[in-house]
């Protein structure tokens, strides 16, 4: 564990990319994943079948994109609990744009509008948190309620989407094996990874998260960086909303309820420290795979639905306990 003393500046650059060195939690996550596959596969061999693998892969995208966005926010030491509601409102607005009487809006415009709405909501969150200076949890708790309320008001009935092309964007497969949605997820992961690792913005995110005072003294625009992370989270929510609506072919006000919890679990399990400034998207990808496979596996071995929820809570608590122990060990190593 000697590499826990990770210096972001020193490590950035192509030659430094090494999955097992960059994030010390990744190897343990891989072990957990293999163990899990063994257990679920042992109880129900169907779990390891190719069909089920395809199910897991196509289920990753909505959560995965949001987890990427939230990772940016958590890396700067903030939280966003409104992500589920942002997805809800973006979904319903996009679906409503399909249903305007007598007007046919191009699909690209609708998708862009949905993403822009997400970015706008993220900007509002960011404004309240950085400029007004309210605690991020309280702010996003407020926007969570507001956006959900508005989404439910807009959607007094499910808004159907009758557009074959739009639906195929979410449900289609490449060569009948790789879902389009998985491709989008990979693209977003790669973009976000490059953004965090090779741009000034990415480095600022880490610096602000590990020590915002030092970052300010070093001339890093702390508030602007934090603001932008919320916008990034909003954008990923918008994209998730696009994917959800196109996969479901309709939208309703409840879309995204309770997502914030799962997303937070993925991010924390993936090794993004809640103290900010530590963790990489590779860990998040592993966390995402584990959480989704667990959800899938528990269904496969017929665990009742309520127990599955309890399981999620236990995983979250275990993840933050591990995070805390890691932080403490790092401090011991420093001292």
């Amino acid at each position, binding site marked *: 564990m000697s590499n826990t003393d990770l210096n972001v500046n020193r490590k950035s650059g192509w030659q430094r990319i090494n999955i097992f060195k960059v994030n010390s939690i990744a190897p343990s996550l891989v072990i957990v994943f293999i163990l899990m596959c063994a257990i679920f596969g042992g109880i129900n061999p169907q779990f390891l079948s190719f069909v089920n693998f395809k199910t897991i892969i196509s289920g990753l995208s909505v959560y995965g994109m949001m987890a990427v966005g939230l990772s940016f926010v958590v890396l700067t030491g903030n939280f966003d609990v409104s992500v589920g509601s942002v997805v809800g409102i973006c979904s319903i607005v996009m679906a409503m744009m399909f249903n305007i009487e007598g007007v046919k809006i191009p699909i690209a415009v609708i998708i862009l509008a949905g993403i822009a709405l997400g970015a706008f909501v993220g900007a509002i969150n960011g404004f309240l948190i950085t400029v007004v200076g309210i605690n991020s949890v309280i702010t996003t708790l407020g926007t969570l309620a507001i956006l959900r309320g508005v989404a439910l008001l807009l959607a007094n009935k499910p808004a159907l989407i009758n557009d074959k092309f739009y639906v195929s964007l979410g449900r289609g497969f490449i060569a009948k094996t790789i879902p389009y949605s998985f491709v989008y997820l990979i693209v977003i992961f790669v973009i976000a990874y490059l953004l965090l690792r090779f741009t000034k913005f990415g480095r600022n995110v880490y610096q602000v998260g590990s020590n915002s005072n030092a970052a300010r003294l070093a001339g890093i625009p702390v508030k602007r960086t934090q603001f932008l992370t919320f916008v990034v989270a909003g954008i990923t929510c918008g994209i998730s909303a696009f994917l959800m609506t196109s996969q479901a072919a309709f939208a309703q006000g409840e879309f995204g309820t309770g997502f914030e919890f799962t997303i937070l679990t993925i991010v924390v399990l993936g090794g993004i420290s809640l103290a900010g400034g530590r963790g990489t998207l590779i860990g998040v990808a592993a966390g995402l795979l584990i959480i989704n496979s667990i959800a899938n596996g528990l269904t496969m071995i017929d665990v009742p639905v309520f127990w599955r929820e309890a399981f999620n809570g236990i995983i979250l608590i275990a993840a*933050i306990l591990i995070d805390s122990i890691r932080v403490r060990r790092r401090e011991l190593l420093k001292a």
Partner: protein
Amino acid sequence: MDGKVLEKKKTSFRLTDTLILLIALIALVLIFSLIRREFFSYDNISTMLKNMVITGVLALGLTPLMIARGLDISFGASISFSGVLMAYLYNLGIGLPYCLIVGVAAAVLVGFLNGLLIEKFDLIPIILTLGMMSILSALALVMSEGRSLSMLTDQLYYFATRTFLKIPISLFVLIIFIIVFWFILTFTKTGRTIYIIGANPKVATLSGIKVQKVRILLYTFMGLVTGIASIVMVAMTGVGNPLAGAKMALPVLSAVVLGGISLAGGAGSVWGTVIGVLIVSVIFNGLSVLNVPSYFIQVFQGLALILIVSLYEVRNQRAARR
């Protein structure tokens, strides 16, 4: 009134704060009663106050905890869980007092566990209690199989419906809590310890206060308060509902924050919280009397929370600049 023991400057500062809130409360009551006569009727007011008991008790429990920089959002799920547990045991034929004791004990245990994990592992309170929330609500659903378990007893019915001097009996629970918390926070050494921890935990540690211990105690106390709120909930509804507390977090947090407690800790008072709870209840009840759809009320609550905190924040920043 509330800060006599603290230094003079602070007292006047906080008093004006409470006064502003009081004026806002009176203005709200006036507006609602002008729009709708029914608002100011005995029936409506007593219903409102009865519904306020649970929010109020929880907000009071959160007050010292948040002053000492802790936070607990698992109380809603804890209420559901304890309620279901009590009803479950009651349906097994166990005597009422034992059911209530077990239910409260479960809530206390949850509070203690929250405190222990948060303090010993130095966790972020909101995240841990979020996890606890999901576990508890899932357990409540497992135990009740997703249904409401009925728990109709004469004693609880009496407690929920009778009035004394035209005041609902359940309201006395809240009044007792207000007096106890006010006394502890203003006149005892424990109260001052809590304020010191909130103002600066490091200084508190250096001056020999066992910060962790006090906070664990406060979390446990929050558990106790939650258990009692759960009894009130079961008494009022007559069922152990696994979703009873699902939407409690926002109104309670709004009330507490409205009453002047900041997440940064160290500030706040019992009277501020009481007025905060009253304002939240008046808004909720007033909008219901005006037949506003419940989604609007949710939007309104969120807006109110953000608006209030922004105002406090802007004013604090201005004060800091001076």
